[in-house]
């Protein structure tokens, strides 16, 4: 093929490899060259597994030569967030605590990618243990936004979002506990899907907040996100919270129009603090949905204003329990100065965890401690019920909810690092969907005057991913507002 292989969508690449238009090895080499060229500035990857990727690619090519049927992601390169286990490769969670920790098994989502003949390129940067909204909390350096190297890519899955935006990988996996897929997708101008809680197995995802965590894909097109989702979704006996639902179809037809689709605009999402430029872009995106035939209706999600407090009690509480396992005995780092067992725990955790992780462990421990439990944790769990009921009531009237993914475009490095509360506010529109456990995605909807991408968030009821992806696909087709940053704007060729 004469085309630049890093400009093709995942769907197109898999077809090219299956039809013999391009070898998997050529596809992988093109992306490795792109990484060599771009990643020194962007730093999306923590670990690059080039040799393993080339041998996986050759195995796919060999399989084709034998005449075997190739999988849905034949030869398609995928980048994996470094809190997801890939056997034989380091899983660090961007923490000193897990430096040198080599995964002994594949996460279920990774095993499914491999079974679909995808090729894994390496592990991407994140906020330490997925705690953050800018990827600045990584212990191993920051990742730059490909659209403006002085800005953050969002977080916590900033490396995965930046890798797709910079054409270093057509697909990536991330995890989303309070917006960690959707917010970086919006900041980097790519598609990011947070599936329904329980839809994708979390076996092999390092646990952060177990009642909220969900794995999902980043992609350059809605169609690619749907394909990746269909590969990784589905019941898994290794995850006790895995939903007994079949995987969705690999291809979701894009409807010609949106007649009969009822879209709700939550009045609580258009409030003070929302950047006027973001508001204009979202209102214009809603006009596009309307011009496609959708009915637009204002809805109320009255408990939205309590979502941040609720989340920042529940998530740190669960994290303080989940991260108790990092004790200097079984994983990675130990402080060698410790004399007693008690000191092994305290010194190792004090030196191994970074500032935001310690802050959240402290916050969670406080909220769960005797005398404070009812005022904080129990209260937050009740508030969570009210937030979930808001969505239940809204979905009785509308099929989908539309709004901004984040209140602003990508911010500058250091802009919010000294003020945890300001950083937490960047998750205000994404957190409610995790608390309610429903499905949501971010799809690019335009650029600011300064040339930074913006995301439209669409939210659907639990297990309604097909509807979500169909509407996002229709929107994408009508607007075609995906542009790669930098020297060569364009859209992935389908």
């Amino acid at each position, binding site marked *: 093929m004469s085309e630049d292989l890093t400009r093709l969508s995942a769907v197109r690449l898999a077809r090219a490899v299956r039809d013999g238009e391009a070898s998997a090895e050529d596809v992988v080499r093109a992306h490795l060259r792109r990484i060599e060229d771009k990643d020194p500035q962007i730093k999306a990857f923590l670990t690059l597994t080039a040799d393993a990727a080339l041998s996986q690619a050759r195995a796919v090519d060999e399989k084709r030569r034998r005449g075997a049927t190739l999988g849905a992601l034949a030869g398609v390169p995928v980048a994996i967030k470094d809190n997801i286990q890939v056997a034989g490769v380091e899983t660090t969670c961007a923490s000193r605590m897990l430096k040198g*920790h080599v995964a002994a*098994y594949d996460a279920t989502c990774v095993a499914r990618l491999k079974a679909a003949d995808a090729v894994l390129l390496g592990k991407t940067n994140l906020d330490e243990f997925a705690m953050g909204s800018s990827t600045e909390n990584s212990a191993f350096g920051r990742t730059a936004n490909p659209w403006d190297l002085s800005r953050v890519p969002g977080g916590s899955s900033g490396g995965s979002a930046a890798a797709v935006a910079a054409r270093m990988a057509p697909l990536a996996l991330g995890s989303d506990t309070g917006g960690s897929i959707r917010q970086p997708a919006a900041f980097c101008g790519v598609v990011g899907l947070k599936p329904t809680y329980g839809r994708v197995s979390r076996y092999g995802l390092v646990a952060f907040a177990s009642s909220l965590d969900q794995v999902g894909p980043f992609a350059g097109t809605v169609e690619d996100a749907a394909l990746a989702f269909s590969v990784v979704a589905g019941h898994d006996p290794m995850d006790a919270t895995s939903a007994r639902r079949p995987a969705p179809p690999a291809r979701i037809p894009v409807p010609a129009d949106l007649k009969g689709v009822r879209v709700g605009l939550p009045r609580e999402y258009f409030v003070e603090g929302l950047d006027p430029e973001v508001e204009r872009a979202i209102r214009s995106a809603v006009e596009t949905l309307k011009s496609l035939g959708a009915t637009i209706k204002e809805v109320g999600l009255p408990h939205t204003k309590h979502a941040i*407090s609720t989340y920042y009690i529940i998530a740190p509480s669960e994290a303080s329990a989940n991260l108790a396992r990092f004790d200097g005995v079984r994983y990675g780092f*130990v402080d060698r100065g410790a004399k*007693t067992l008690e000191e092994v725990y305290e010194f190792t955790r004090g030196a191994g965890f970074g500032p935001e992780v310690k802050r959240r*462990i402290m916050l969670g421990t*406080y909220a769960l401690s005797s005398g404070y439990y009812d005022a904080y944790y129990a*209260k937050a769990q009740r508030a*969570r019920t009210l937030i979930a009921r808001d969505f239940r009531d809204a979905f009785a009237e509308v099929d989908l909810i539309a709004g901004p993914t984040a209140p602003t475009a990508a911010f500058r490095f250091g802009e919010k690092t000294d003020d945890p509360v300001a950083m937490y506010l960047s998750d205000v529109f994404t957190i409610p969907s995790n608390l309610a456990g429903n499905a949501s995605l971010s799809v690019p909807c335009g650029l600011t005057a300064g040339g930074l991408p913006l995301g439209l968030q669409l939210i659907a009821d*639990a297990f309604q991913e097909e509807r979500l992806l169909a509407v996002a696909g229709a929107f994408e087709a009508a607007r075609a507002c995906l542009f790669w940053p930098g020297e060569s704007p364009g859209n992935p060729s389908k």
Partner: protein
Amino acid sequence: MSVTEADVRRIAKLARLRLSDDEVSRYGGQLSKILEAMAELGALDTSGVPATSSVTGAVNEPRADEPRPFPDRERLLDNAPEREGPYFKVRKVLE
């Protein structure tokens, strides 16, 4: 909501985190600020509202308790900072 240095030291002890004096004073200020922002929840009426711990209504679903060999036991053991044969090595638990 003001979190004192004594509070920070107590919580750090519960969480098994050794903090420097610098961290103790910094976390005190930051936790106070965060808890102050969260105090707004107190005004929310949640009387009669049940707690949500699982959103999908799913209940724990244990799989059949059948032993299976783990494919790479050596790798798991090798990840430990200290091992001795097939064991994790720890400091003395009882004096």
